[in-house]
C-alpha cells in the first residue's frame, strides 16, 4: 500500500473534494503543506498579499460559482488575518473551508512562536471547526469540512492542522470517504408538506402580497423556481441586498431592493402588504427598521433552511424549514393542483397602487437626484454608465459604503451570482479580492469592483496579486475624498461635524499607483469623458484598469429609512420625506 505524509494527504483530499483552486499565503506552520502543494499539479494555488484577501477571494469565487471556496493560511498572524474574511463569509452564509497551519501538537499551549488558538478565536464566526490531531484523520476531516460548509445553511469551516500532523517523515495510507455521515448533523431539506399547502393557500388568497426574497434564493440556486412562482401568481417581488439577482432586476414585477436604502415602492408595498412571503431572507435590522412597526397588516410566511432564522426577529405565521429550491418546487406544483385561483381583481388593483408609487417616487421611473454636469459627476450616473457599457452582464463586486448602495440601486441584476458584496458584516476591503475570485472563476467575463477611495485602500495590495495571476479586474473607484456613508450619517445626525471621515490632501495618486503595479490607471473628472473612458477600460480585456472617478462629494444615498420608523418612513432626498 502506498503511504503518504499528512501534507500529501491534505492536498489529495482537496483534489478528491473537487477543489481546483486554493487562495493562500505560506508560513512556518504550513510549510509541510506548501511543500506537498509544490509537488503536484491538481490543485492550483493563488498567492495573495494578505490572508484577509485570501479568504475574500475564496469567498468571491464561491459566491460567483456556487462552489465551496478554499483558503490556506499559516498559524498565528496568518490565522488571525483570515478572521475578518471568515466573519464576512459567516454573516452571508458563504461555504468556505479555511485551512490553517498550527504549531506542533507538542507546542500547543506553550505560547510558541506564531501560536494562536485558531479554533477558539474563530469559534463564534464559523459554522464548525476542527483541530486535526492525527495524519490518519486528515482526509475524513476534509471531507466533513466540505460537507458541512456546503449543506444546510452554508458557512465557513475552519480546519486547523498542527505542523507535526503534516510531517513528511510520518506516512500513512490514504483513503477519502465516499460519503459523509454524521449522527449529529442532518440538515433539513424538504419543508413540511402541510405547512407548504397552508402557505400556498394563503398566497393564493392574498390581496396585497409581496414576495420578499433574500440571499438564500441565490445560494440555493432557486432563482428560476422563484421567478416561475412569482410570474404565475403575478405577485410583486423585492430582493434584499443579498438577494439581488435572485429575481430579474429588469422584470416588470420587480420592485427593487427593500430596506434601509430600498426603493420607496418596495418599502411601502411591504408596509401595506396583507401577505409577505419571505424566502431565504432573515428579517435583518437593515430591512425591517423598527420591529414594533414592521408591516402591521401582514400574514408572514417564512421559508428558511435554518430554523434559527425563523421567528428570531419577526414571528412567522407560517414557518417552513427547508431549502428554497425544494419548497418552491413543491409550491409551484401545489399551486397548479389547487382548485382556488388568485384574486385577479385584487391583484390588478394592487398593481395599480404599486405602479402609482413607482411613478410618484420610484428611482427607476425618473431621476430623483440632480443630473451630472461638467465636473460634477454624480455617483449614480457612474453606475448607470457601468450598466450601459457592460450591458448589465458584468459581475459586480463592491466594498462597503455609499458606492455599494448606489451599485445595488442602479445596476439591475438579471442573474443570480453576479452581485457580490459583503452584506451582513459590511467589510470594507472585500471588493477587490472578491473580484479576483470571480475573475479566476470566469476569466472571460467582465468583472468590475465598484469601490471608494476609502475601501479600496483596505486591500489595495492585491493589485499585485492581480499582476502575478493575470486577473484583469476593472476597478471603478467612486472617489469623493471622504468616507461617504460616514459623512452622510454625520450630515444627518451630527450637524455635519465630519469627525475623521475626510482625507484632506493625503490620498494617493491612484493612476500612478495602478501604474506602479503594472496596471492601467485612468482619472476622470468630467462627465463628458466618462462614457468614452469607460468603454476604453472594458475594451482592455486582459488588463487591470483602475478608473479613479471624482464624484460629487455632497451626494447622499436615498431613499433612506428613518431610524425608529416603519419600513415606509423614508427620506427621499435631503429635504423631502414620506
Amino acid at each position, binding site marked *: 500500500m502506498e503511504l503518504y505524509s499528512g501534507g500529501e494527504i491534505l492536498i489529495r483530499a482537496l483534489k478528491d473534494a473537487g477543489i481546483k483552486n486554493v487562495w493562500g499565503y505560506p508560513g512556518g506552520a504550513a510549510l509541510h503543506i506548501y511543500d506537498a502543494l509544490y509537488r503536484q499539479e491538481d490543485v492550483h494555488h493563488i498567492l495573495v498579499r494578505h490572508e484577509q484577501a485570501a479568504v475574500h477571494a475564496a469567498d468571491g469565487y464561491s459566491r460567483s460559482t456556487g462552489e465551496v471556496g478554499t483558503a490556506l493560511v499559516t498559524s498565528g498572524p496568518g490565522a488571525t488575518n483570515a478572521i475578518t474574511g471568515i466573519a464576512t463569509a459567516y454573516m452571508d452564509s458563504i461555504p468556505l473551508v479555511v485551512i490553517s497551519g498550527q504549531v506542533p501538537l507538542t507546542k500547543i499551549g506553550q505560547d510558541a512562536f506564531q501560536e494562536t488558538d485558531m479554533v477558539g478565536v474563530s469559534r463564534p464566526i464559523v459554522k464548525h471547526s476542527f483541530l486535526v490531531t492525527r495524519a490518519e484523520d486528515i482526509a475524513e476531516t476534509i471531507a466533513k469540512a466540505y460537507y458541512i460548509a456546503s449543506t444546510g445553511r452554508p458557512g465557513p469551516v475552519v480546519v486547523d492542522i498542527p505542523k507535526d500532523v503534516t510531517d513528511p517523515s510520518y506516512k500513512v495510507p490514504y483513503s477519502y470517504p465516499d460519503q459523509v455521515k454524521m449522527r449529529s448533523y442532518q440538515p433539513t431539506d424538504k419543508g413540511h408538506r402541510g405547512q407548504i399547502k397552508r402557505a400556498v393557500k394563503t398566497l393564493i388568497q392574498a390581496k396585497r402580497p409581496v414576495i420578499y426574497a433574500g440571499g438564500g434564493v441565490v445560494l440555493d440556486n432557486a432563482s428560476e423556481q422563484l421567478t416561475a412562482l412569482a410570474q404565475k401568481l403575478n405577485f410583486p417581488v423585492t430582493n434584499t441586498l443579498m438577494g439581488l439577482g435572485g429575481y430579474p432586476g429588469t422584470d416588470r414585477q420587480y420592485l427593487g431592493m427593500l430596506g434601509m436604502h430600498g426603493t420607496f415602492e418596495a418599502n411601502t408595498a411591504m408596509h401595506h402588504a396583507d401577505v409577505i412571503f419571505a424566502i431565504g431572507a432573515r428579517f435583518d435590522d437593515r430591512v425591517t427598521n423598527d420591529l414594533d412597526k414592521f408591516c402591521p397588516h401582514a400574514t408572514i410566511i417564512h421559508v428558511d433552511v435554518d430554523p*434559527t432564522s425563523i421567528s428570531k426577529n419577526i414571528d412567522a405565521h407560517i414557518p417552513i424549514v427547508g431549502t428554497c429550491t425544494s419548497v418552491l418546487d413543491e409550491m409551484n406544483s401545489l399551486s397548479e393542483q389547487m382548485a382556488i385561483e388568485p384574486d385577479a381583481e385584487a391583484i390588478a388593483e394592487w398593481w395599480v397602487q404599486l405602479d402609482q408609487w413607482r411613478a410618484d417616487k420610484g428611482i427607476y421611473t425618473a431621476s430623483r437626484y440632480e443630473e451630472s454636469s461638467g465636473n460634477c459627476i454624480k455617483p449614480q450616473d457612474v453606475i448607470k454608465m457601468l450598466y450601459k457599457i457592460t450591458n448589465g452582464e458584468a459581475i459586480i463586486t463592491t466594498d462597503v459604503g455609499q458606492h455599494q448602495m448606489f451599485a445595488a440601486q442602479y445596476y439591475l441584476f438579471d442573474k443570480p451570482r453576479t452581485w457580490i458584496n459583503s452584506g451582513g458584516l459590511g467589510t470594507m476591503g472585500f471588493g477587490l479580492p472578491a473580484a479576483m475570485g470571480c475573475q479566476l472563476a470566469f476569466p472571460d467575463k467582465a468583472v468590475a469592483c465598484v469601490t471608494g477611495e476609502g475601501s479600496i485602500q483596505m486591500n489595495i495590495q492585491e493589485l499585485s496579486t492581480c499582476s502575478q495571476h493575470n486577473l484583469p479586474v476593472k476597478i471603478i473607484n467612486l472617489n469623493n475624498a471622504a468616507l461617504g456613508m460616514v459623512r452622510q450619517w454625520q450630515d444627518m445626525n451630527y450637524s455635519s461635524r465630519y469627525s475623521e471621515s475626510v482625507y484632506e490632501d493625503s490620498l494617493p495618486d491612484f493612476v500612478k499607483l495602478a501604474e506602479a503595479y503594472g496596471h492601467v490607471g485612468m482619472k476622470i473628472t468630467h462627465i463628458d469623458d466618462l462614457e468614452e473612458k469607460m468603454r476604453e477600460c472594458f475594451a482592455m480585456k486582459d488588463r487591470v484598469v483602475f478608473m479613479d472617478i471624482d464624484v460629487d462629494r455632497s451626494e447622499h444615498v436615498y431613499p433612506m429609512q428613518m431610524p425608529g420608523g416603519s419600513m415606509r418612513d423614508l427620506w427621499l432626498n435631503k429635504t423631502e420625506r414620506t
Partner: protein
Amino acid sequence: MKRIISILLENESGALSRVVGLFAQRGYNIDTLTVAPTDDDTLSRLTLTTQGDDHMAEQIVKQLHKLIDTIKVVDLTVGSYIERELMLVKIKATENDIRAELKSCVEIFRGHIVDVTPQTYTVQLAGDSEKLDAFIEAVRDMGIMEVVRSGVSGISRGDKFLRV
C-alpha cells in the same frame, strides 16, 4: 422563568466550549451547567439552567441544535421532569447545641453528615434546587463556611428519554 435544557453532545474536545460560547455570544445567561459522559462514552450529557420567556427558550433550543456537535436538545421545563442537585456544605460546629441542631436539620432534609471534625460538620444533600436553597436558609445562622453545588441534573418523567 427557569428553564432546564438537556443536551446530548458528541464527547469531543471543543464541544463544550461551543455550547458555552453560544450563550455568551447570543447574550443568554447560564445559571448552572453540569456535564459528564453518558453510558456511551462517545456522548456527553449536559444539563443547563437559564432564565427566559418562551421566545427566548425556543431560540436557545434552536441555536443549540444548530451546533454541529449537538445531537439532541430538549427543554425539560415544557413537560414534567425530575431535577436533582447535589450540595456539600461545610458548617462551623464547635458548640454542642449547634451540633445537635444541625444534626436534626440534616435529618429533616434527608441529608448526610459526611465529614466531622471538632470544629466542623460537612453535610451532603441532594434534591431540587429549592430544597437546597431552603436548607441553606435553615442553617445560615449556624455559620456556613463553604457551599459547593453541583448544578442541576435533569431527566424527563415517564416514557420519554433522550438517546441516540
